């Protein structure tokens, strides 16, 4: 049966790649012990691990996760969005080279910090046995290799699988799920009422977010180059323009100061409070960071001014709106509106649990922030996968006068 050949092949490839990833997640780094119980890492680290698929507290080959790959990908898309002329003229090879070297660079920096952190963590490393001069470079080497390997898995998935590169986050999310649930469980134990509430909240959250994520705002445009006017061309963008980028970046930004401080051996509880989700200052800081990133990424993803210029060049226009400056204003206004809406939703989802936790003086609520963020990321990934699957499913599924009809 040649039907769905492509679909099965691609799904199979993705599953295979995910399996490889899971294996890699469990390969321990030399010199360290793997600790199996659920450690109480700060929630920021947890968030970071969640959104990048790394296992920051466990010294494994894939500890860095997709973080370097993500950063360079986001960095490149931001750069090409701003500098479109440059993007048009570079070859695929050059772009690929920049990606690889970028991953190497980010991995190097992160590996450095992580190696030192592992070295100092008495739970997994016994200082007496080996010198720092041997451990740290070796660890870094392995970590960087791991990061590059993950990047390779991700690009293999783009070529041969479904859902694009970020499907590789899934194994990391699975480990995070177990951690989250382990930490939430004590609060739910014996309180079936709370469990039901959690279930209802989860389901409604998934439903609402899924609707919002796939919803589009459409602007009807006229395209003179199209001779056949029964078609309805439109400009479209997602309501949640920024997607999950703010979440990914905010966790890094919030984690950065702590890592820097650790590096410099400075211990300032005052500063740390601002970047700890349990404190009020930390919560507010987090909200601000999320909102700013949300708006920023919305504009970077869309570039309404650029769109207006392109439209003018191609002779397209919005009905009743003059091309050029008028169209620019029109688009900027609308993008700003949805950027604000989308970012507020994001902040709402991430921060409300934290605020509740603060008011109720129960730190367990911070886990809910991570919990819902996790579902958000999952929805985004699955939307991507669904698009690819749909396309593959329908590609060959029809025949003229055949008994087999598509949808």
């Amino acid at each position, binding site marked *: 049966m040649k039907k769905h050949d492509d679909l099965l092949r691609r799904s199979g490839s993705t599953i295979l790649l995910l399996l490889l990833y899971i294996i890699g997640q469990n390969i321990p780094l030399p010199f360290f012990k793997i600790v199996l119980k659920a450690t109480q890492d700060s929630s920021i680290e947890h968030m970071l691990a969640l959104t990048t698929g790394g296992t920051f507290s466990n010294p494994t080959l894939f500890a860095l996760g997709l973080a370097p790959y993500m950063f360079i990908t986001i960095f490149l898309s931001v750069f090409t969005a701003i500098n479109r*002329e*440059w993007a*048009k*003229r*570079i*070859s*695929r090879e050059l772009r690929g080279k920049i990606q690889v070297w970028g991953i190497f660079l980010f991995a190097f920096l992160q590996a450095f910090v992580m190696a030192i952190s592992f070295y100092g963590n008495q739970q997994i490393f016994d200082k007496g046995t080996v010198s720092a001069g041997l451990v740290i470079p070796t660890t870094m080497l392995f970590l960087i290799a791991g990061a590059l390997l993950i990047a390779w898995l991700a690009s293999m998935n783009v070529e041969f699988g479904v859902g694009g590169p970020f499907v590789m986050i899934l194994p990391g999310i699975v480990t995070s799920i177990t951690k989250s649930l382990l930490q939430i469980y004590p609060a739910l134990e014996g309180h079936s009422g709370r469990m039901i509430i959690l279930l209802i909240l989860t389901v409604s959250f998934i439903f609402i977010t899924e609707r919002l994520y796939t919803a*589009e705002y459409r602007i009807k*445009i*006229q*395209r*003179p*180059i*199209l*001779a*056949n*006017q029964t*078609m309805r*061309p*439109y*400009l*479209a*963008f*997602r309501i949640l323009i920024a*997607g999950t980028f703010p979440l990914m970046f905010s966790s890094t930004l919030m984690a950065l100061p702590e890592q820097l401080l650790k590096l410099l051996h400075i211990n300032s509880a005052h500063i740390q409070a601002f970047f700890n989700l349990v404190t009020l200052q930390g919560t507010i800081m987090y909200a601000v960071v999320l909102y700013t990133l949300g708006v920023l990424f919305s504009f970077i*993803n*869309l570039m309404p001014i650029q*769109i207006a210029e392109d439209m*003018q*060049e*191609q*002779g*397209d*226009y*919005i*009905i*009743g*709106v*003059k*091309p*050029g400056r008028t169209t620019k204003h029109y688009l900027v206004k609308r993008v700003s509106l949805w950027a604000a809406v989308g970012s507020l939703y994001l902040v709402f989802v991430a921060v409300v649990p934290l605020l509740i936790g603060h008011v109720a003086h129960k730190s367990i609520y911070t886990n809910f922030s991570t919990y819902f963020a996790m579902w958000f990321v999952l929805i985004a990934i699955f939307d991507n996968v669904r*698009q*690819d699957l*749909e*396309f593959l499913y*329908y*590609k*060959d*599924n*029809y*025949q*003229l*006068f055949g008994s087999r*009809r*598509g949808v």
Partner: protein
Amino acid sequence: MLELSKYRRITRKVYNALPEYQAMSDAELQSQTKIFQVALENGKTLKQLLPAIFAAVIEADRRVLGMEPYYVQVLGGVALFFGNVAEIKTGEGKTLVATMPLYAHALLGVKGNFLITANEYLARRDGMEMGAVFKWLGLTVGIGTEELDYQQKAKLYDADIVYATHSRLGFDYLFDNLGTEIGQQVVTRFNFAVIDEIDAVLLDEAQTSLIVSGAPKVQSDLYEISNWFFNNLTEVDYELSDDERSVWYSDLGLEKINNYFDIDDVFSADHFELYTHLILALQANVLKEKGHDYLVEDDAVILLDDTNGRKLKGVKLTNGLHQAIEVKEDVTLTKETKTLGVISYQSLFQKFQRLAGMTGTAKTDEKEFLETYRLRVIQIPTHEPLIREDQVDQLYVTNRAKVDASIKLVKSALQAGRPILIATGSVNMSRLYSLLLLQHKIPHNLLNAESAERENRIIDEAGQVGSVTIATAMAGRGTDIKLSSMAKKNGGLVVIGTERMANRRVDNQLRGRAGRQGEPGESQFFVSLEDQIMTENASNRARNYHEKLLLKVEAGTVEGDQALTSLQSRHLIDKAQQTRKNMESRQRRSTIAYAIILGEQRDKVYLARRQVLNNQQDEVERLIDLAIKVTIDNFVSQKQNLNIEVISSFIFNNIDETISLARIEQALIGQIQKEDVQTLLVQLVKETRASVQRRLSHPLQSQYFKKIIILKAIDDAWVLQLDYLQQLQVIVNGRTTAQHKPINEYGIEAQRSFLEMERQIQFNIFRNLLMSKIEDNANGSFDLAFPK
């Protein structure tokens, strides 16, 4: 490299086998074909027999043509056999190289072996020349020349080896699947093809598909008025993009539009058509240049190919742009037509079991060949070593300085007694140079799209001492400039490039005119920062650099007429060409992705057509029954259709206009139920169908009628679908802002509309069956008029 050594080994085996075949008598050698064929039937593979097969052809070439292939030609033949792109330099005798792999693959007896040439002339020339060898060896050869009737076409494609152009093959395939002639199809077998100038066909022409068009559309009358409006504008009324590929109206221009046409806002929904035509007029006048993009001849606008400078016969720009140019040049307006059939070269050639190609220029694009077509590029060494001197490009700030420098070289080459080929980038530039040479009192020949009829004579003279030939890229591919012995002694042909061409390959093709077959020769390109390749593709940085240089020249700090030698300058042109190549590569990739989806639909439709043509009567009956059922079901399932007006309208327009209203009303009294309507419609259809059947007394007539109405139904719907798909491609590209992959959008929408097309076909069959007008002729035949 590994491949080349493998092929060398095989070539050695060929030469080992050769003596045996050289010793054979004519009759013995001719009988080898049969021997090979029997061996293949008995389970031997072509690969195993390859050395023997090639040896046989080599010997036959020698005996029939008096030409024995050189070692490098045999090597090329081996490379082609295995399905590669063989980079074979000009003058190395590509035609002979192809004979070996073609003979080999033809031995399989499955037909469908092609040598695809660049033009009809070559198809005829090579087909006759090389065909003699194949015929001598006992195979049949077909040569695709103009104007063949059905019988001749069938015979042509039934030959073991066919020499034809790529467009002929493509169009014959499309025509096979058009119209309602119940005949056998002729282009059905695709075994092995060797494409000559494969880079031109698969890369340069990948953006253009073969289109069969007809069914003229309704003409708009806004072209003239839009063009008149443009003629009243000045430069401030519109703006150009940096790369000068796009143009739009400035605020001033828009104001003028609103004033002249006395409208409030041209961007309101009512004035869309007007605005469209105004844009077309703008594009036609500002972006398209006579003598560069097109010529005007015999009251028609003829497009020019930008990679080889030749006239593109029968090609028009789409979506009204061509008509806008026609109005601009005051030429009779031609009608816009609908697409009846379309196929891309990529789709066409992917049908072959094995594909190979030859060209003098492929290495520069080997990645693309590999990625898109899975073809490896094998560089075949030349028989004599290449001694042509390719000089480093000379770069100048201004056009003026560049031209002056090039004239200097012309004069010195003339003095040295060497023939000169001056390659220009467009018809206009070629004319300019001609004037310049006249000013300098240098006699010369001019070869461009306008003087194409004199091409052979001009080329014949081009290799003589004292000969100066100005040409466009026409003198690139396939042009054989033979040197006189005096010219050779003086140092051979000098190719002077007056600007870098559309891409590296065109440059290299022009260079390749000199230094053929180990002859001496030289190539020198002159470039300026004002050349088109720079203005269209240079980065902003390059543009700024250019402006700074211009200022320096004015200030006198840089000599305006000196060549620029800094490393930075050198890179600029290369980068501009590379940029263009990347862009075209990207465009090709996306075009191909869409063409694949369209191709899949086309294959399904053509398959359905074939099935109808070949099917038994009961299959055809089943299709018609299904069409009737589906159409009626669709109609009654929509609630808003269940009222007397809609129902009777449906009956009058789609079943029979003579049915009385009274009858309908009688059948549907009171509350109209779905089932009642269904019963009525089924009954009416049955009656009408029976009466149609009675008109077609003879069973053959009846069969023919049924098949034809189905085919017409499919074709009408497919034409609309083609139109839709071509527009869809443009539309999904505007949706990238929602982070959908355009190709995914395209695939899903295309499938949705395919299913709608199926419903449309059912409906068409329904109508055609019941509403066609049958006119009996005296001689027993009938004429058929389909419902509008």
